[in-house]
C-alpha cells in the first residue's frame, strides 16, 4: 500500500533555492534569569538530518521552539526559509512534532490528521499519512484509547501530513519501547529519502548516531561540539575501567587517553577514550590487579569529556 502510492507524492524541496534552510546567528534566549541558549549559532542545510543532542534541560527544545517562532530570541538573529519563523506562511512548509502533555482525547486518529492536513496547501492524502506513520489499522481509534507509543505516532503523523519540506521532531521516540523506536527510525529515514530536511532532538547518543548526518551537541545552553556521528563518537567513545589496583593515581594519569581517575577505598575508576591500551598497560604494570570491569561511559560521561575538551 505504502509503496504503491509512493509515486503520487509530489515533493518539491527546492534545494537550489534554500542551501541553508534555517540559521541561528549568535542567538541568546533567557527565561527570566535562566539562560536557556547562549550565543548559539548553527545552520540547517537542505536534505540533511541534524540531531540536537544533549541531556534534559540542555536547551534543545528551546532551539526547536525558536525555529517554530513559538518563542522569541532575547538577542541574536534567526531565520527559517529566509523569513520570520513565526509567520503562518513559513509554517505551511514546516511540520512539527512537539512534546505535549495532553492531546484532545475524544477525536479519532483519522480526524486529527484530517484537521491538520486542512491547514496545509498541499497535504498528503490522509490514507498516505496513515500508512507512513503506521496508523492505518488505528485510524478509527480515539486518541485517548491509544498506547503511549501509538500516541507518539499520531503526533508524528500530524508533523508529516502537510507534506512539509522541513520537519522538527522533538524527542520523537521518548517513552517508546525498542521495537516502536526502530520502526519510527525507519519512518524517519523514509522521509529523508524523500528529500525532507529534519531537525531532531534527542538525549540518546545511539539515536543521533543511527539517524543523523550531523550532530550538534548542546549542554547548558551552549553548543559544545558539532560534527558527523563518526566525529562525535570518536570524541565521546569513553569507557570506564573499574578495578582494584595498587598503581598510583599519577601513574594511571600517564596512561593513554585517560580523562579522569576516581578512587573509592580499594576501587579505582579510570575514564578513558582508549580502554584497550590502558587495560594492556595496567595488566603489565600491576600483576595483582583484580576485579576488572569495563563499561561504556554513558552519555553523561561523554558530555563531561566534551565539556572538558572545550574548556582546554
Amino acid at each position, binding site marked *: 500500500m505504502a509503496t504503491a502510492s509512493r509515486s503520487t507524492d509530489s515533493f518539491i524541496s527546492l534545494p537550489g533555492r534554500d542551501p541553508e534552510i534555517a540559521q541561528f546567528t549568535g542567538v541568546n534566549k533567557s527565561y527570566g534569569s535562566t539562560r536557556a541558549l547562549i550565543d548559539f549559532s548553527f545552520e540547517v542545510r537542505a536534505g540533511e538530518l541534524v540531531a540536537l543532542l544533549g541531556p534534559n534541560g540542555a536547551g534543545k527544545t528551546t532551539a526547536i*521552539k525558536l525555529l517554530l517562532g513559538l518563542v522569541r530570541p532575547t538577542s541574536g538573529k534567526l531565520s527559517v526559509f529566509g523569513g520570520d519563523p513565526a509567520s503562518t506562511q513559513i509554517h505551511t512548509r514546516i511540520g512539527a512534532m512537539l512534546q*505535549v502533555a495532553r492531546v484532545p482525547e475524544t477525536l479519532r486518529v483519522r480526524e486529527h490528521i484530517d484537521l491538520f492536513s486542512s491547514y496545509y496547501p498541499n497535504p498528503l492524502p490522509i490514507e498516505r499519512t496513515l500508512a507512513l506513520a503506521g496508523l492505518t489499522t488505528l485510524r478509527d481509534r480515539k486518541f485517548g484509547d491509544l498506547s503511549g507509543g501509538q500516541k507518539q505516532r499520531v503526533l508524528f503523523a500530524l508533523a508529516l501530513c502537510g507534506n512539509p519540506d522541513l520537519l522538527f521532531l522533538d524527542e520523537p521516540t521518548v517513552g517508546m519501547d525498542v521495537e516502536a523506536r526502530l520502526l519510527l527510525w525507519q519512518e524517519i529515514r523514509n522521509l529523508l529519502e524523500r528529500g525532507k530536511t529534519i531537525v531532531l532532538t534527542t538525549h540518546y547518543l545511539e539515536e543521533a548516531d543511527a539517524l543523523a548526518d550531523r550532530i550538534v551537541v548542546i549542554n547548558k545552553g551552549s553548543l559544545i561540539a558539532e560534527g558527523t556521528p563518526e566525529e562525535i563518537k570518536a570524541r565521546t567513545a569513553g569507557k570506564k575501567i573499574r578495578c582494584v589496583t595498587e598503581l598510583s593515581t599519577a601513574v594511571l594519569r600517564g596512561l593513554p587517553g585517560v580523562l579522569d581517575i576516581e578512587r573509592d577505598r580499594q576501587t579505582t575508576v579510570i575514564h578513558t577514550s582508549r580502554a584497550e591500551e590502558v587495560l594492556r598497560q595496567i595488566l603489565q604494570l600491576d600483576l595483582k590487579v583484580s576485579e576488572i570491569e569495563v563499561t561504556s561511559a554513558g552519555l553523561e560521561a561523554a558530555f563531561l569529556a566534551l565539556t572538558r575538551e572545550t574548556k582546554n
Partner: protein
Amino acid sequence: MASVSTTMNPAILGRPNAISICVKEAKYEFLKSLRIPMFLVSTLVFPLMFYVLFGLVMGRQMIGNLRSTVYLVAAYGTFAVMGASLFGTAASLAAERGLGWLEVKRASPMPPFAYFLAKVVMSLTFSSIDVLALMILGVAFGGVHLPAATMVKLALTLIAGSLPFCAMGLAIGYFARPTSAPAVINLFYLPMSFCSGLWMPFLFLPRFIQRVGVFLPSYHLSQLALNLVGGGQGGSASGHWQTLIGFALLCLGIARLGHQRDQRAQG
C-alpha cells in the same frame, strides 16, 4: 477537502482557504465536545432536566400573570446558553493552553483566529440546541403558546446574548489552570445564575441579592428574554444590550491580558 487549495489563485498559492479551515476546526471542536460526557451533562442535561422537573413536573404555577412553563423557557434558556458558552470555551482553552496542545496548533499553519472562532461557533451550536430543545419541551408538554415571531425573537436573543459569555469563558480560560477550570467556571456560573433569578423568579429573591443581581450580565440577558414573553422587570432592551456589550468588551480585554501574559512567559 484536499482539493480546496488547488483551485486557489496562484498568486496566493500556499494558503488554503481560511473559511474551510474554520469550518473544519469548528466541526471537530463540536465532535470533540459532543464526546465528552461531562460537557454534555453540564450544557444539555442539567438545563433540560431542570426545566422538566421545575417546569413540567412541578405543575402549572403562575409567576405573576405568566405560566411558569413560559417563564422558565426564558430563565433556563439563559441558564443553558451561559453554560454552553462558558464550558465550551473556558474548559478546553484552559486545558489546551496549559498542557501544550495550543502550542502544537501554533506551530502549525493554522490561522490563530480559527482556533478561537471554532470554540465560539461550537458554543453557539450547543446554545442553539439547548434553546430549541427547551422550546420543543415547552410547546409539547408545558402548554407554551407563543406567537411564532416571539419564539424566533426569543431564540435569537438567547443565542446572540450567549456571545458575551463566550468572551467571559475565554477570559477564564486564559487564567484558570487546566485541572481547576471546570470548578472555576462553576464558581462563577452557579452563583451568577442564582442571583440573576434563573432558578427562582427574581422578585422572590432576598432584597440584598436583587441589589447584586441587577449588575450581573446574566440578569440583563434573562430580562431581555423575559421581556419578550411578558415576564420581565421592564427596563429598556437597549440598556440591557449595552450592559452585555460592555461586559463582553471587558472580558475580551481580560482575555487579551491573559494572552499577552502567556506570550511574555514564553518570551
